[in-house]
C-alpha cells in the first residue's frame, strides 16, 4: 500500500507499472473486489462525467440561485469564431470544466472528483484532450485511476475539504490530480506525473474557500476553469523535463499546513474573501430573501 507520492512512484517504477495499475491493484487488495468490477465502476464514473460535460456545453443550465449557468456555452461559441488567444485544447478543457460545474450547481448528476465543488477540473482536462490525444476508453479510465491515486495521497495526508483546508484542498487537489493524470495520458513517466502534480498544486497554495452565500457556485465554477488551464500547463512543463525543486509530498504537506493556519473566515464559512465583498453580501441577501426550494 502506498502512503505518499514517493512510495507510489517507487512502486510504479520498480515494477514497471503505470500509476493507474498500482492504484487498481491496491483497490483489489483493500476491498477484496475483483479487478473487472473495479474497472467497470470507473467506466460508469467516466460515463457520468461525459454526460455532464455534454449537457453543460449544449444546454443552458441554470443554478437554483441564478448565480451560475451558461458560461460553458459562451466559451464554446467563442471558440467557434477561431479568434481565441490561448489554445483550442486549453479552452475546450476550460469550457468542459465549467460545463461540469454548472451542471453540478443546477443539481444535475456529476461524479465528485475529489468533491462536487471541484468536480470540473479532472473531467474538463480529460474531455478537452479528446481531439488532440484521441484516447481509448481504457486510457480514459486509466487517467481516472491515476488522478485517483494522487488524490488518495492528498486526502490521506492533507485534506480534500474546503471547510478543512480552503479551496486549495478542493480545486487545488483536483488541479494537481488532473496534471498528473494528463502526463500519463500523454505518454509521460510516473515521476513526470509527480512533478506535474507538484507544479500544479504549488500554484494553488493559499487559495481560500470563500463561497458567496455559502454556495459552491461563485467563485467555484471559475476556479475550476482556471484550475483546468493550470493543470494542462503544469503537465506540459513536466513533459518538457522541468522538475519541482520542492518534492511533491512536501508540497502536499505545505498545502495541509497552510490550510491549518488559514483563518476560519476563509474556510467555507462565507465570512470572508469574495463572500464578504459588498456585492457578495448583496447577492447573499438577495438569495436568502427568496425561496430556493422548488417544491415549496
Amino acid at each position, binding site marked *: *500500500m502506498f*502512503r505518499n507520492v514517493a512510495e507510489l512512484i517507487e512502486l510504479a517504477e520498480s515494477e514497471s507499472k503505470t500509476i493507474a495499475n498500482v*492504484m487498481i491493484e*491496491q*483497490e483489489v487488495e*483493500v*476491498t*477484496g473486489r475483483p479487478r473487472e468490477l*473495479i474497472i467497470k*465502476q*470507473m467506466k460508469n*464514473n467516466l460515463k*457520468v462525467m461525459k454526460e455532464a460535460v455534454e449537457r453543460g456545453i449544449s444546454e443552458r443550465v441554470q*443554478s*437554483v440561485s441564478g448565480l451560475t449557468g451558461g458560461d460553458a456555452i459562451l466559451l464554446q461559441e467563442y471558440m467557434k469564431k477561431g479568434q481565441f488567444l490561448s489554445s483550442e485544447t486549453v479552452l475546450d478543457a476550460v469550457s468542459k470544466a465549467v460545463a461540469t460545474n454548472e*451542471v*453540478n*450547481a*443546477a*443539481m*444535475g*448528476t*456529476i*461524479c*465528485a*472528483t*475529489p*468533491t*462536487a*465543488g471541484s*468536480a470540473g477540473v*479532472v473531467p474538463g482536462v480529460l474531455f478537452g484532450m479528446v481531439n488532440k490525444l484521441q484516447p481509448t476508453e481504457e486510457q480514459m479510465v486509466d487517467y*481516472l*485511476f491515476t*488522478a*485517483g491515486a494522487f*488524490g*488518495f495521497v492528498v*486526502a*490521506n495526508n492533507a485534506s*480534500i*475539504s*474546503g*471547510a*478543512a483546508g480552503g479551496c486549495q484542498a478542493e480545486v487545488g487537489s483536483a488541479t494537481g*490530480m488532473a496534471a498528473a493524470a494528463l502526463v500519463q495520458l500523454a505518454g509521460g513517466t510516473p515521476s513526470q506525473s509527480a512533478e506535474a502534480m507538484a507544479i500544479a498544486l504549488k500554484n494553488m497554495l493559499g487559495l481560500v474557500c470563500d463561497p458567496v*452565500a*455559502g*454556495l*459552491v457556485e461563485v467563485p467555484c465554477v471559475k476556479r475550476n476553469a482556471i484550475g483546468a488551464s493550470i493543470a494542462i500547463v503544469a503537465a506540459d512543463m513536466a513533459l518538457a523535463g522541468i522538475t519541482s525543486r520542492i518534492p511533491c509530498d512536501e508540497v502536499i504537506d505545505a498545502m495541509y499546513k497552510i490550510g491549518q493556519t488559514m483563518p476560519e473566515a476563509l474556510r*467555507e*464559512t*462565507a465570512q470572508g474573501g469574495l463572500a464578504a465583498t459588498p456585492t457578495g453580501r448583496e447577492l447573499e441577501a438577495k*438569495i*436568502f430573501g427568496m425561496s*430556493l*426550494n*422548488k*417544491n*415549496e
Partner: protein
Amino acid sequence: MKYRTVFDIIGPVMIGPSSSHTAGAARIGRVARTLFGQQPDYADIYFYGSFAKTYKGHGTDVAIVGGILDFDTSDKRITNSLEIAKQNGLGIDFHEEEAITDHPNTAKVVLRKGEDRIELVGISVGGGKIEITELNGFQLRLSGNHPAILVVHNDRYGVIAGVSNVLAKHEVNIGHMEVSRKEKGQEALMVIEVDQNVDQPLIKELEALANITKVTKIHD
C-alpha cells in the same frame, strides 16, 4: 488512512451541488432509514453549523429527505424528495439550530413510526464521506461505508465474546469494532464493521444470545 478506496476520490456519482452538503446529507438520511428498518411516519431534521446556514441553496434538505426515502446519492428523485415524502405520508420538520457542534456539517435525524423511534447524529466530513457520531444517545464512529452490525445489549461480561464467537463461526472478519454504554451495567451498544455483507440467519443467531436486546445490520 482516512480514505480507503479510490472511489472516495473519483466519486461518488451524485446529484449536485455539494458533496458535503448534498451527497453527505443524503447518506446520513439513508443510514438513519436503514437503521430504522422501515419508512417512518415522521422525520424531525435538525441542521447545525454550515448545514443550518446554507441548506436551502445546497439542497441539503431535499438530499437528507431523499436519503430517508432510501434514495442513493445519484438518484434523480432526490430533487423532488419533499414532494415524494408528502405523497408517501411522511411528515417532515426542519429545525435550524444555533448550537455550536464539533463539526461544521452536522445533522440530527429523529425518525418515528408509532412507538418506534430512532435518533441519529451524523457529520459530513468531505467528498461525500460521512460519520455517524451518535445513535440513540450512544457516542460512536461509524462511516457507513462498510457493512456493519449494531448490537444493543446489556452491559454484562461475556456478551462481546459471544458475539465475536458467532462471527468467527460464520467466517465474518471484523474490520473495526467499538463498544459503548451509557452507564456501567446498563444498556450498551456494539458497532462492528465487517468486510462482507451478513445474512439474516447470522443476525437471528446473534439475537438469540443472552443479554442481546436488538441486532440491526447496515449494508453498503
